């Protein structure tokens, strides 16, 4: 069964909007995704009829709100195949999830000279927290390089990981679209005695996710890239690791007891959820998971592989050497996210011209400046496709690229 994109699009109110009389061709879902009616309605309905505090009041409304919030946690746990709800920590976003690991587990367990291994395709969110720790505690960073076609070069992986304490890597590059061999990378980390921290931000919205099958230790992802609201992210971690870690932010909800001379932390996952959490956003994330599950993550992945294949062929056929698409050409190891250079036209100008046709693409360094330096491009344009895009959107993109040639064809 293939996805019925027309009826999926009908579920997203944003696509009813026209600008200059034309519909929006949204190709920026790797940045942030659009929201289906089911998510919008779930959040509105909760605020209209069910809103209350969680974990701290005895009246029925508060108990219902707590159940709804915890229900969202259970949905997340099932969605990524984690072992228990205690392993699902709600954060502000994936960036906060990654910082949480660096600030708590790594700060407590790493000291000067300890090695953290990253890859050349990481997002700033999985680089800067480690740079900060390097500056504070003198940890050493090592890097897994890339192959010419934008996959991880695993030739020297064992040597790179030798003696490492953490291997932190993305499951899918936000720039290249590359899907990394997560299970293999987790096994390599463990063979070296390192923990495996997976940045699932780009992967989770588009694929079946199985943290147990991966045998990972931590994974971070965001709601807003998977049809859910902004303002909430997830850190999954193995329970014994989370249990042994010091707390992150201090405040209400994360404590079991507070005395004049100290405090004790709450049980998981509340231990890492200080203060009033994003309650409404959790409800929205739960609704997004129901929406995605209703379509099936395997179907979504299959659909995006088709669109990716069509995009690679169409853009290649129509523009030949005038377009350079970064990353793998094999759709088995890539998602439908394409960074590209087009006829020496600066990505910012390209994006401006495409916007004239309501084609929304990202232009810039994609919060991956080390990777951009390796690609030798200070910026790229990036078109990223999701479940509401299909082959027609590829054609509109290609037509819009033609109009860029009209202006900058020199």
């Amino acid at each position, binding site marked *: 069964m293939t996805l019925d994109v027309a009826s999926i699009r009908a579920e997203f109110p944003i696509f009813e909007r026209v*600008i200059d009389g034309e519909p929006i061709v949204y190709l920026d879902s790797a940045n942030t995704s659009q929201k289906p009616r089911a998510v919008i309605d779930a959040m509105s309905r909760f605020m209209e009829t069910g809103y209350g505090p969680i974990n701290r009041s005895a009246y029925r409304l508060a108990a219902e709100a707590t159940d709804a919030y915890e229900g969202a946690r259970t949905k997340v746990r099932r969605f990524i195949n984690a072992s228990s709800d205690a392993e699902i920590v709600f954060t502000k976003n994936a960036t906060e999830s990654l910082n949480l690991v660096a600030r708590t587990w790594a700060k407590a367990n790493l000291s000067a000279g300890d090695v953290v291994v990253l890859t050349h395709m990481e997002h700033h969110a999985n680089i800067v927290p480690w740079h900060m720790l390097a500056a504070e505690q003198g940890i050493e960073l090592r890097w897994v390089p890339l192959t010419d076609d934008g996959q991880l070069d695993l030739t020297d992986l064992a040597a790179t990981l030798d003696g490492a304490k953490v291997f932190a890597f993305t499951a899918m590059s936000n720039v290249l679209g590359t899907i990394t061999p997560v299970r293999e990378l987790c096994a390599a980390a463990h063979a070296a005695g390192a923990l495996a921290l997976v940045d699932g931000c780009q992967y989770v919205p588009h694929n079946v996710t199985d943290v147990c099958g991966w045998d990972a230790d931590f994974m971070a992802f965001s709601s807003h890239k998977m049809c859910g609201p902004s303002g909430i992210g997830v850190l999954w971690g193995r329970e014994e690791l989370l249990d042994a870690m010091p707390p992150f932010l201090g405040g209400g909800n994360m404590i079991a007891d507070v005395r004049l001379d100290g405090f004790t932390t709450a049980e998981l996952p509340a231990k890492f959820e200080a203060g009033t959490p994003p309650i409404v956003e959790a409800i929205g994330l739960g609704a997004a998971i129901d929406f995605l599950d209703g379509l099936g993550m395997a179907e979504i992945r299959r659909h995006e592989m088709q669109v990716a294949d069509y995009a690679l062929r169409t853009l290649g056929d129509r523009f030949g050497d005038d377009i350079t698409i970064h990353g793998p050409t094999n759709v088995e190891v890539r998602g439908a996210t394409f960074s590209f250079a087009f006829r020496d036209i600066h990505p*910012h100008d390209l994006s*401006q011209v495409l916007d004239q046709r309501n084609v929304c693409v990202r232009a*810039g360094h994609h919060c991956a400046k080390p990777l*951009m330096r390796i690609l030798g491009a200070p*910026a790229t344009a990036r078109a990223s496709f999701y479940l509401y895009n299909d082959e027609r959107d590829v054609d509109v993109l290609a037509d819009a690229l033609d109009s860029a040639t009209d*202006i900058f064809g020199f």
Partner: protein
Amino acid sequence: MPGLEDLYREIILDHYRSPRNRGELPPPAAHAVGHNPLCGDEIDVYLQVDDGVVTDIKVGGQGCSISQSSASMMSQAVKGKPVDEVRALVKRFKGMMSIDEDAGERDETAEPGAALGDLEALQGVVKFPVRIKCATLAWNTLVQALEESNA
């Protein structure tokens, strides 16, 4: 939406295709680097100031057509000018780049000596607010370079 012809005027594309005063100046010329963190554009401004006059200017770096053409036109406009005229020009240009239309008018009367000339072509950028930072990047970097040269 305003048409792209408001943005990509021929004179802008000409400066983008053939940027003026590209290159570097050796010390003791002042050197400042400007970044647009939004898009990754970088601009280098090298400034030689002698006796209160900008005797030479070179521009390096890379960026979009708007940031590059603005830098090119800026280099032409300030070369050979006394520093106080350069500062007046910066003020005029930034006034023109203000989304607050009144501010541009005010600056025009306040700095009658600073003619924008070709730079007027960049006026259309104001209709595309996300691009204003592209147009002003070189100018902010010029101000840094002026400070660097203690002019």
